[in-house]
C-alpha cells in the first residue's frame, strides 16, 4: 500500500513550503481585514514548525524525523529560513528546533473549563518572517523545490513521499507558469509513492473558501482550474485520516484550496500533514 512508509530517523519525511512573497501578500485577508496575508501565512508556518518540533521531541532532544524546507518567492527565490539556517535547503527538524530566529511571548486564549476563555502567555518561536515584496516567480520556486526533492529521494528512496505545499495569493508571472515543472515534480517518487503537491490560493475577497474539491467544474475561473490540475489527488490514506476525524473530503479530492482565509490556511496545512503528524514515531 502506498503512502504508508514507516517514519523513522533513517527514513524521515520531507516537507517543503513554497510561500508567495509578492507585494500583494501585504494586503489583508478578505474575511480577516485586520490581518495581512503575509503575516497570517508566516504565523501558520511558524506554528506548524513548532508543532512538528514538539511531535519529534523526547527527553534527549528533538529527533530527526522530518526534513523541512521553506522557499520564499517574490523579489527573490531562496530559502526563507533565517538566522543560523539562512541559505540552507532542507534542514533536519532537530536543527530547526535549535535555531529559531527568536522566541516571542504571545497571549493565547484557552477555554477555562467553564464555558469561557482565559488568557495565558505562551512561547512562540519564529523561524520565518513575513515578506511582501516583488512579483510572483512561482516556476523558479518549484524548480528549486524539485531539486531539493530529487536530492532527498536519492538519499531516502523508501521514504514516505515528500509533501510540497504552495501558498499563493495570485497567478504566476507570465514567464513563470509552473505547470510543466510541477508535473515533473509530481513524478518524483519513492518506493512508497509519488511526491504530493498541494496548492492553496489565499484570498483578499470575502468569498467562501473551496477546500479539497474533487472536480474542477465548480471552480470560478481558469486560474483556479489550473491550480486544481497542478495539485495531486490526495492518497486514500490522507482522505481516510481526514474523514475519520470528521472532515468531509471525497475520495478523488485534490490537494487544493481556493479563496482561503486565515482559518482555511491553517486547516489546509493541518489536513495535508495530518497523516504524518499522526504517525506513531
Amino acid at each position, binding site marked *: 500500500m502506498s503512502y504508508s512508509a514507516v517514519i523513522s530517523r533513517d527514513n524521515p519525511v520531507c516537507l517543503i513550503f513554497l510561500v508567495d512573497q509578492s507585494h500583494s501578500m501585504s494586503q489583508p485577508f478578505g474575511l480577516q481585514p485586520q490581518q495581512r496575508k503575509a503575516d497570517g501565512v508566516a504565523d501558520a508556518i511558524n506554528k506548524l514548525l513548532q508543532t512538528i518540533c*514538539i511531535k*519529534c521531541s523526547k527527553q534527549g532532544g528533538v529527533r530527526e524525523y522530518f526534513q523541512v524546507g521553506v522557499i520564499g518567492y517574490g523579489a527573490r527565490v531562496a530559502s526563507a529560513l533565517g538566522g543560523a539556517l539562512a541559505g540552507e535547503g532542507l534542514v533536519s527538524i532537530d536543527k530547526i528546533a535549535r535555531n529559531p530566529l527568536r522566541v516571542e511571548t504571545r497571549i493565547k486564549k484557552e477555554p477555562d473549563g467553564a464555558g469561557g476563555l482565559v488568557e495565558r502567555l505562551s512561547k512562540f518561536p519564529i523561524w520565518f518572517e513575513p515578506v511582501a515584496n516583488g512579483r510572483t516567480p512561482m516556476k523558479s520556486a518549484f524548480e528549486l523545490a524539485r531539486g531539493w526533492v530529487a536530492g532527498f529521494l536519492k538519499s531516502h528512496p523508501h521514504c514516505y513521499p515528500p509533501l510540497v505545499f504552495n501558498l499563493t495569493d495570485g497567478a504566476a508571472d507570465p514567464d513563470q507558469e509552473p505547470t510543466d515543472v510541477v508535473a515533473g515534480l509530481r513524478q518524483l517518487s519513492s518506493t512508497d509513492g509519488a511526491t504530493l503537491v498541494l496548492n492553496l490560493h489565499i484570498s483578499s475577497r470575502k468569498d467562501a473558501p473551496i477546500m479539497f474539491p474533487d472536480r474542477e467544474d465548480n471552480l470560478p475561473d481558469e486560474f483556479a482550474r489550473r491550480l486544481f490540475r497542478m495539485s495531486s489527488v490526495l492518497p486514500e490514506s490522507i482522505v481516510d485520516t481526514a474523514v475519520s476525524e470528521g472532515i468531509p473530503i471525497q475520495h478523488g479530492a485534490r490537494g487544493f484550496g481556493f479563496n482561503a482565509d486565515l482559518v482555511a490556511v491553517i486547516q489546509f496545512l493541518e489536513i495535508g500533514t495530518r497523516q504524518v503528524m499522526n504517525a506513531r514515531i
Partner: protein
Amino acid sequence: MLHNSSAAPASTFQCRTRYLLLPKYGHLDSEFEDALAENSAEGRFAVADGATEAICSDIWARLLASALVKQPLPDADEWERWLAEQRGAWLEAVRGLPLDLFAEMKLAEGAAAAVLALQIEPHGGWKALSVGDSCLFQVRGEELVGAFPKTSSKQFDNRPPLVRTAAVNPALPNVARGDWQSGDNLVLMTDALSQWFLQEYEQSQPLRTTLEDLLAVAADRAALEQKINRLRDSALLRNDDIVLVAVDVWGDERLRP
C-alpha cells in the same frame, strides 16, 4: 476471554517467569518506552506500554508497572485514588529533568501508557486488569484458552484507551477473571507482539511452540533481533517496542514444566 477453564482449581501455586524485551527497530535501548515488573512471591506481573507520541511516557510506564505489582490490583472504586498517587509520583519524577523548550511544551500535554497487570491467586484463579491494548494470553499445551482484552488481531488500532497523567476523562480499567491449571502459561505482551500472536493463533499455529521458539532466543540479543526484525521486515510484526512476560504456573511440583 475466549472461554474459561472449568478444571478443579489448585490450592497453591508456584511459577517461573521468563521475559524478553526489544526496542523498536532503529531505536536505542535508552529510548525503550515499554516496561515490565514482577512480584513472583505475590503472583503479580505487569507490562506497560508508554505512548510514543508523548514525552516521559517511559517514566510513566515504569512507574505504573512497578506500582501494579507492589500491592493487590486496585478495584474499580479505588482506581481514581490509586491513579492520583501515581500521577503525583510521575510529576515528582519529571520535575527538574533537563528539558529543552519543545520538550517542556510537550511535557505540559502529559504522558500516557497502556497497562496490563496479572494477579495469580492461590486457589486456582487469576485476575487481570487492563487499560489499552497490551494483552494477556492463557496458553495450555498448544492451545489458546484465553485472551484479554483483545481476542482478534483485527481489534488493534492507533487509538487505544490509555492511562494518562492528565486527569481528563480517565479511561477505566477492564477486569477479567479466570482459572488456571497446572502447566498453563500466562503470557503478557505489549500491543505489537500481541497482535502478531493473535495472528499466529488465527492461522492455527502451535502456540506453545511459537512461544518457546521466541523465548529460546530471549537472552541472545543478536538472535532475538534477527528473529524479531525478520518478522518486522515481512510486515508480520509492527515496528514497535516489545515486551513479553511468560509465567509458567503450576500447583503440583510433579507437573512443573
